[in-house]
């Protein structure tokens, strides 16, 4: 959209600032939302003391986290230990660059947009592995190793389910994918892929019932057992930002992005549609977390390799055949 190199740079810088501000605020809001949702599911009110409806609670908690001492365990690999929390937050920020918030609200509408989001979200695992390894703690290492195995197992069906959408649109550009859902959302044309995506996305973001890497009842706190203060805070914020990204991608791939249902936008701006759908999906992910117990690690792997991957492969095959026939 830029008509020169200069405006392109300005656009990028403004975009980055907006992304940074938005991702932080959004993470704080999501933490609050999670606690509110959990509270109401569990017959208690959730945070309500600080600010209206307890909205400022997470900010206060964040300040508390910043004030905490940063402890590095003596046997830890110091450099890697310090880099890991930064490393975990970087890739989630990149994901924001290609998210289609509205028809004119994409920072960079790249032709490899879909690929970029998933390529970078995989980086997060590297940071988790680094953190778990550098802590030099058995629980942290177990958590990290599980996280890698889980992410590899769920990345495959996730990408395969996304591929069936990409096949239908014949493009990896987010704006084209959203535009082709004008009349009907892809969740109705690709229900299986949509379901697989949602399940795998939950696993990708290490959310319950797939929160094995940080299974607190077994592994104390998993990979971030040894992290204190804002280093822990970064892992925490990254998890919530990640949740936003997978929900946003799901919204654009399966739920029509900025489009209203069946082409009726009802005069509501696209960005509102987009955010509403994303937050509804996030709510569903939270709802699941507070309702289900945790799956065991081997069951989780079996579920991926024996159910999800064959199913997504079959779905891709059927999609390809149908597209060829039509």
């Amino acid at each position, binding site marked *: 959209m830029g008509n020169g190199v200069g405006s392109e740079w300005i656009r990028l810088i403004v975009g980055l600032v907006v992304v940074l501000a938005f991702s932080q605020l959004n993470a704080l809001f999501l933490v609050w939302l999670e606690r509110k949702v*959990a509270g109401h599911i569990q017959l*208690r009110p959730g945070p309500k003391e600080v600010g209206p409806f307890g909205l400022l609670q997470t900010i206060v908690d964040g300040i508390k986290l910043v004030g905490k001492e940063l402890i590095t365990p003596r046997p830890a690999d110091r450099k890697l230990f310090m880099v890991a929390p930064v490393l975990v937050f970087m890739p989630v920020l990149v994901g924001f660059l290609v998210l289609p918030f509205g028809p004119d609200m994409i920072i960079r509408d790249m032709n490899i947009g879909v690929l970029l989001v998933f390529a970078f979200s995989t980086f997060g695992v590297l940071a988790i592995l680094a953190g778990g390894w550098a802590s030099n703690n058995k629980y942290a290492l177990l958590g990290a190793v599980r996280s890698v195995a889980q992410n590899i197992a769920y990345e495959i069906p996730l990408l395969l389910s996304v591929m069936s959408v990409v096949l239908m649109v014949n493009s990896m550009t987010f704006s084209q994918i959203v535009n082709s859902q004008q009349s009907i959302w892809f969740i109705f044309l690709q229900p299986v892929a949509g379901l697989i995506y949602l399940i795998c996305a939950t696993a990708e973001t290490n959310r319950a*019932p797939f*929160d094995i890497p940080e299974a607190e*009842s077994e592994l104390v706190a998993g990979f971030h057992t040894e992290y204190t203060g804002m280093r822990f805070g970064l892992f925490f914020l990254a998890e919530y930002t990640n949740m936003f990204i997978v929900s946003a991608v799901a919204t654009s791939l399966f739920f029509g992005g900025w489009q209203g249902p069946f082409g009726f936008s009802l005069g509501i701006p696209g960005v509102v549609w987009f955010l509403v759908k994303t937050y509804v999906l996030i709510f569903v992910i939270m709802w699941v977390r507070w309702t*289900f117990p*945790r799956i065991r690690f081997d069951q989780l792997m079996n579920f991926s390799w024996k159910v999800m991957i064959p199913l997504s492969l079959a779905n891709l095959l059927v999609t390809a055949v149908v597209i060829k026939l039509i």
Partner: protein
Amino acid sequence: MAEKFQEPVVDQIYTLNLGPQHPSTHGVLRVLLDLDGEFIVKADPVIGYGHRGHEKMGENRTYKQFMPNSSRMDYLSGMIYNHGYVLAVEKMAGIQVPERAQHIRVICSELNRISSHLLWFGTYVMDLGGFTPFLYAFDDRERILDILDRVSGSRLTYSYCRFGGVSRDVDVEFIEMTRAFVKRLRSRWSDYHNLVTKNIIFIHRTRDVGVITKEQASQYGVSGPNLRACGIGYDVRKAEPYENYDQFDFEIPIGEKGDALDRYKVRLEEMEQSCRIIEQALDKLPKGPVMAEKVPANVKPPKGDLYFAFESARGLTGYYLVSDGATTPYRLHIRVPSFGNLHVLVEVLKGTLMADAISILGSVDVVIPEIDR
């Protein structure tokens, strides 16, 4: 170098120190796990972190003075332990208890059993990663604590029973509250079943996990719901009825396989049976005094010894008292169910996954201070 990579990886067994400050070991249990990857090769429970010397204390205190200690060993079934201790001393000293007091004791003990099982239900599902049922169960448990608080003045360490009766009579409101609670708990079963029992993840995490065979159970002295889940229907309340348990109509639920799911089901069914006992006791509750007349201030049982067994929420519990005719016991020994229930795990945990270890540990419902006492 290249050749080295071709060599098969030698199995490396490492030790993981689970506890004593681990979030899921329920108190101060420490288990040394030898792990091969995530599989357990050897599990070695280390006990004794909560040792307070209750048995030795018993030798230096009069029978009455030991009363508060009795509810501090198994803090989750304090009322039942207290009840059992009082029964043992009464039997030794030949003290008769009025019928009303007997009924009240049974009601309170059964309420205590339900509260203990509810707490187990909540923490067990939390061990499996489900946080919400925990708060549901605690919400219900809170009502029991309110009821018991009303009669005994305490929420956890009751010391409500006295030699020859109970410390205070119950009033109409106690009866109403208890009836309301039983009604409420019954209406909650469907919530519990929908949230947990029918949950596919829960079933997969508990079915065929941590099977205790009948042989292992009798070898290690497993008792309580864990034993009944193996298919052995032994319950002291039925086998050797104490107090007036023989007057009530209730069943002993038993399992089939002895896995974690069976233990779960047995405990849930036991709560329902306890509700039945409470209802019958409330219906029959006779009028009259709640304390026997002429109970000496300092009980002096005749010379001799006595073993008295009763059923706590965790299983067969026993007091062994030796008296030399003085006001303090010569020896006071307590048989606790958690000891056998914990040590059978040395066999059961072998070859299971680390994730299952937590599930199995939770499913047998051990209270560590009771073992250490």
